């Protein structure tokens, strides 16, 4: 909350907008933060967020390239990093030689693909599977981002709660129980019904919103038509309405705990739900939130087949002062060998085809998950991912509204499914 002495401070509050758009309209020239001094010495500023696990790699790279100094510019929150990238596009200023971006930001960054350098080389053109490259490729085929990690999904489950409910507890048996390689949502919910009937006191999953993330990503065109980018959710038999109906008819199996809330975080330690959709990075979150809960395990299976959730890219602003050096560094950081090292030490699962098959990756086990071979499991889950849902101009706004529509029914219980769906359609109509 701002405090202002006079009403005019309100005007000052608008400064941000105007400064952002001013820079944009005047097309001011870039002023890179990096300084290319004489003698071929370059300083490269790399903006990341959360934990990319690059500290050791930076040291290694600087040792091999004595002329390069790398400055790590780590944002406190991914939100801050996103705002910083967007403001730098809006004002046409380059503050970092390399910027990291989450896959969720890519559609809007791709619309300003001119701002970024083409990072594809003959060497890295086959480094990632097609769906990963498609996330960073603009309409003209220009690749603006080098893939770092990925989020292939399995199912994390509680052995003790499964046992209580009379279900198998071995991870191979659990995978078979949920349908193995032909796992469907029907089978997942049918098993959930069995689990609920056993009255363990726990729910089957955390929230509808968490499942929606998977179910929507499995649609080829979740909210918009690939052919003309038009919004399709309003049609009576749209993919979105099918997913919504499927999910809301199983509200009784939900623990009503929205992801990322305090309640949800605490629930991993207690007996609130038995399964959770588990992208590779989720294993670190569970282990961090419930270090003393020894019953979490992970099964090599996913309702509806396969899905990837999350993953990031490294981008190089085209107007930076050291584009060539920055590209070389970004290329090296995202090469399979480095990605494998990051996974082994930090657990960020790679997105590079060769890294996923790397022996050090597949050999990794996780003591927290009862020594589950997480490297091999996620490698399998990664190979199963084949398609990338179409994400049009309004994807993230609609996705956000879709999540809120489920939260209203499932967590807040302020609306029934029909009323909440209507509110969802109204909100989508208001998007400009």
């Amino acid at each position, binding site marked *: *909350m701002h405090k202002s002495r*006079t009403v005019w401070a309100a005007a000052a509050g608008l400064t941000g907008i105007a400064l952002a758009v001013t820079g944009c309209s005047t097309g001011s020239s870039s002023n890179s933060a990096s300084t290319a001094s004489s003698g071929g010495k370059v300083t490269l500023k790399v903006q990341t967020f959360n934990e990319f696990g690059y500290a050791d790699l930076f040291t290694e790279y600087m040792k091999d390239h004595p002329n390069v100094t790398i400055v790590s510019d780590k944002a406190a929150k991914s939100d801050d990093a996103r705002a910083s990238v967007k403001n730098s596009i809006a004002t046409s200023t380059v503050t970092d030689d390399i910027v990291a971006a989450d896959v969720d930001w890519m559609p809007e960054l791709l619309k300003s693909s001119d701002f970024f350098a083409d990072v594809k080389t003959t060497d890295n053109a086959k480094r990632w599977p097609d769906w990963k490259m498609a996330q960073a490729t603009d309409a003209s085929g220009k690749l603006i981002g080098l893939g770092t990690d990925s989020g292939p999904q399995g199912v994390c489950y509680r052995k003790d709660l499964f046992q209580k409910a009379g279900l198998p507890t071995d991870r191979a048996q659990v995978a078979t129980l949920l349908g193995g390689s032909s796992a469907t949502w029907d089978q997942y919910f049918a098993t959930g019904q069995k689990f609920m009937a056993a009255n363990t006191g726990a729910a089957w999953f955390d929230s509808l919103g968490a499942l929606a993330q998977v179910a929507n990503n499995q649609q080829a065109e979740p909210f918009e038509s690939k052919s003309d980018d038009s919004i399709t959710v309003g049609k009576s038999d749209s993919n979105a309405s099918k997913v919504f109906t499927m999910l809301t008819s199983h509200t009784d199996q939900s623990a009503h705990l929205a992801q990322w809330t*305090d309640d949800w975080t605490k629930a991993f330690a207690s007996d609130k739900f038995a399964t959770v959709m588990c992208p590779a990075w989720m294993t670190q979150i569970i282990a961090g939130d419930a270090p003393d809960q020894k019953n979490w395990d992970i099964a090599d299976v996913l309702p509806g087949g396969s899905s990837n959730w999350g993953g990031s890219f490294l981008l190089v602003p085209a107007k930076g002062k050291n584009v060539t050096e920055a590209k070389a560094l970004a290329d090296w950081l995202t090469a399979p060998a480095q990605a494998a090292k990051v996974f082994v030490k930090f657990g960020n699962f790679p997105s590079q085809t060769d890294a996923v098959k790397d022996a050090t990756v597949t050999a990794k086990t996780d003591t927290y998950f009862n020594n589950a071979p997480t490297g091999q499991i996620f490698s399998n889950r990664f190979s199963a991912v084949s398609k990338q849902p179409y994400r049009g101009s309004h994807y993230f706004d609609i996705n956000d509204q879709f999540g809120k529509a489920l939260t209203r029914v499932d967590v807040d219980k302020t609306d029934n499914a029909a009323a909440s769906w209507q*509110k969802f359609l109204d909100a989508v109509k208001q998007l400009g």
Partner: protein
Amino acid sequence: MVTITELPTRPRDVRPRRRIGMRQRLGRWDVKVSPYLYISPFFVLFAITGLFPLLYTAVVSLHKWNLLTGEGPFVGLKNYVDVLHQPFFWKALRNTFSIFALSTIPQIIIALVIAAVLNANLRARTFWRMGVLVPYVVAPVAVAMIFGQIFSDQSGMMNAILSKVGISPVGWHSNVLASHLAIANMVNYRWTGYNTLVILAAMQAIPNLIFVIITSTIGGLQIFDEPTMFDQQNSATTAGGADGQFVTVTMYLYQLGWGSQNNLGRSAAVAWLLFLVILAISLVNYWFTNRIASDSGAVRRARKVRS
């Protein structure tokens, strides 16, 4: 008596007289211009950080304008019409006023009482005065964590206490009024101490206490941080509750312009609408304080008589 013979002497007088004239003129300029020079830093700064953005925002609000791709065609008042037709905007306005009222009124009462106490001849006065400012310097992340724990819907401390006294748990994130109360608590925690010091200063130096109180709290209409922090499951670009229970006008403004819509045009329109609301309230405030502030009014009347 002036005679013709005296005339030739005049040119000799010209130089000193001119020097006097120059000095006088400089003196006159000094009197006329210097005051403006002295106050000019404020106006120059204001023009750069206040007036220019204000006018530029008005220009943006009349265009289709994307944050990333820039200026689009002139659309007149379309952005304003769009925004005013969105139920979400009215929800945000309602929430803003509701949270404002729930936080400001108790805050001012408490701050007045504390300020009155601090104004008395206390022992270790500076210690107490510094003490009230402590919550103000607590890192927002810590505030978010503390209040997140207290107001969690299922595992929160507040609901645990309520259930002890036989009250059923409150949906702090789903119930409109409950969410406003929780956020108002957060606001009060952070800002009561600050306002106490402002009021204390007013008690000791400035006669027009009410004017100080109103002007120091009206900025509360720009509330953004606390409701954003209160929504744990969403980022700043989507926060505010699943049904917009606690989205505020500035949050809405930010989400339009910096969320994935990147709709700076509409965002600017919301900014101007908020500006007009604050302006209207300020005018009422101005009129109101002038009416009741008898002492400064007396001074003005006295001045008028003298001139």
